[in-house]
């Protein structure tokens, strides 16, 4: 009655694989050819993504003179505990695209379902760091034209679940603002083309304090940006609904004392503004308790900060990670209590960080990468 290795039928193996984290599955692609095909298959990636109760989150960093792209596990205890992702893999992905490709001009424009949207000097890229899957996309027609103004330009990236489609959104506004110079465009991955949204004027420019325009957070099925209205010279929040494909505006909190250097984030379960008060070395966090309701803006937290503090990501229960000056990544709990840090060679004026989810997802139309 001795049993040798009990072979598991294929369907049972899948049930186990679906419960493994992405890192393990990437490694297990090496088990055999059939495992490689299975794990690489879009259906498996989808099922895995749907099933995953706790998706692994990582922080992607382009630290400074960008010869490296780093990736750090959010959950790791952060006490200077090091970065466990080789940059060589990442560089290889990009070298494939263009032998002259340089990391120098890369800007992070968004992160959604495991894909990061990057703007290079002559193209946009969608890239899944976990699988290496990538796609090159042309710059928006008006981005290309207004190249000189691109620091004021707004880009966003998100997912339209009604069509299983990814959208890159581009908003440009000539800073001298005249009535014909603002444009709202989007690129649908399924349609594989840029379309302009006609009609209304879009007099919005990037108002983020960071040298690189900040990633527009995804919340409630819309991409949000902190913007400045070129015509009225006020701060507003502008949002693009990914299903309706429409723009709408929300007012900024009504408080003359809000420090001027602000960024927009999702904090816990709320849309939130993080304001850097450089004069007093403090940061203030405001949340919109009721989405779209102006009067619900509430200041919830004030923290001391040595240098500029940029929020990268916060969990549903309110723990958050950001970057602080030259220090690197810092982690706080929802009460503002310091939990740890992870330093790496960082130049606060140029480094960029974004949170991404590890996923095995593919992009629509992904038979061969370009």
């Amino acid at each position, binding site marked *: *009655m001795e*049993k040798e*290795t*009990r*072979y*598991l039928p294929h369907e*049972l*193996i899948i*049930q*186990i*694989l679906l*419960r*493994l*984290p992405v*890192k*393990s599955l*990437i*490694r*297990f*692609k*090496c*088990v*055999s*050819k*059939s*495992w*490689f095909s299975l794990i690489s298959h879009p259906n498996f990636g989808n099922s895995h993504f749907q099933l995953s109760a706790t998706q692994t989150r990582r922080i992607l960093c382009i630290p400074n003179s960008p010869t490296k792209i780093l*990736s750090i596990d959010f959950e790791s205890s952060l006490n200077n505990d090091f970065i*466990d*992702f*080789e940059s*060589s*893999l990442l560089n*290889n992905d990009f070298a494939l695209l263009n032998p002259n490709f340089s990391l120098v001009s890369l800007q992070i424009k968004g992160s959604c379902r495991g894909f990061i949207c990057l703007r290079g000097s002559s193209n946009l890229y969608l890239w899944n760091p976990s699988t*290496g899957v990538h796609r090159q996309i042309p710059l928006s027609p008006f981005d290309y034209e207004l190249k000189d103004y691109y620091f004021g330009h707004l880009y966003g990236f998100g997912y339209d679940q009604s069509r299983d489609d990814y959208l890159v959104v581009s908003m440009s506004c000539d800073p001298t603002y005249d009535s014909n110079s603002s444009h709202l465009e989007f690129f649908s991955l399924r349609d594989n083309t840029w379309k302009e949204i006609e009609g209304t004027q879009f007099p919005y420019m990037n108002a983020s304090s960071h040298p690189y325009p900040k990633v527009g957070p995804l919340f409630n099925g819309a991409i949000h940006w902190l913007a400045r209205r070129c015509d009225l010279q006020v701060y507003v929040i502008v949002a693009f609904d990914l299903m309706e494909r429409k723009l709408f505006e929300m007012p900024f909190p009504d408080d003359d004392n809000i420090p001027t250097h602000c960024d927009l984030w999702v904090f816990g379960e709320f849309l939130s503004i993080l304001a850097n008060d450089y004069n007093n070395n403090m940061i203030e966090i405001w949340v919109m308790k009721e989405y779209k309701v102006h009067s619900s803006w509430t200041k919830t937290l004030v923290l001391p900060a040595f240098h500029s503090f940029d929020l990268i990501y916060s969990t549903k229960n309110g723990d958050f990670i950001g970057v602080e000056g030259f220090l690197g990544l810092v982690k706080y709990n929802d009460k503002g209590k310091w939990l740890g840090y992870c330093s790496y060679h960082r130049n606060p004026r140029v480094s960029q960080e974004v949170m991404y989810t590890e996923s095995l997802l593919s992009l629509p139309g992904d038979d061969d990468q370009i």
Partner: protein
Amino acid sequence: MAQEASSSTSSKTISLKTGDGEIFEIEASAAKQMKTVQRLIDDLGDDITIPLHNVFSKELPKIIEYYKKDITGEITKDFEAEFVKDLNDDEVKVLFLAANYLDANKLFEFLSQNIADRLESKSVEYVRKYFGVENDFTPEEESKLREERAWSFRGIKEDE
């Protein structure tokens, strides 16, 4: 066979016979959680000893223990941790196969996750052995694949 009103089965026990000929008792309400067993009861009646050809005397008591807890109280994380604590990877696999055969969904889900947790940091070689999968890559192919995803091998011991 007299057809009893079997809705009040709270104290009724069912006899199960394993593939190696041993007999175990289980409460009817627990048996209900194992769809294969319930189907056999529906076909054969609840007075007969139900034959389970593919489950053996090593596994069945453990499965019965799980469902006994399920019907009397809540299955907690602590209970589940304790339940698998002394089982090695192969024993869990056998239990998992048995849960599948018995169509015992709750146990099946729990063991799927437990096996995944055990395999998470294991090497490629270990996984091949565990599932009985043959490596059909050439050495060159395999080393290229490993190099391309070197980051996923960090912190993993190559030998078990």
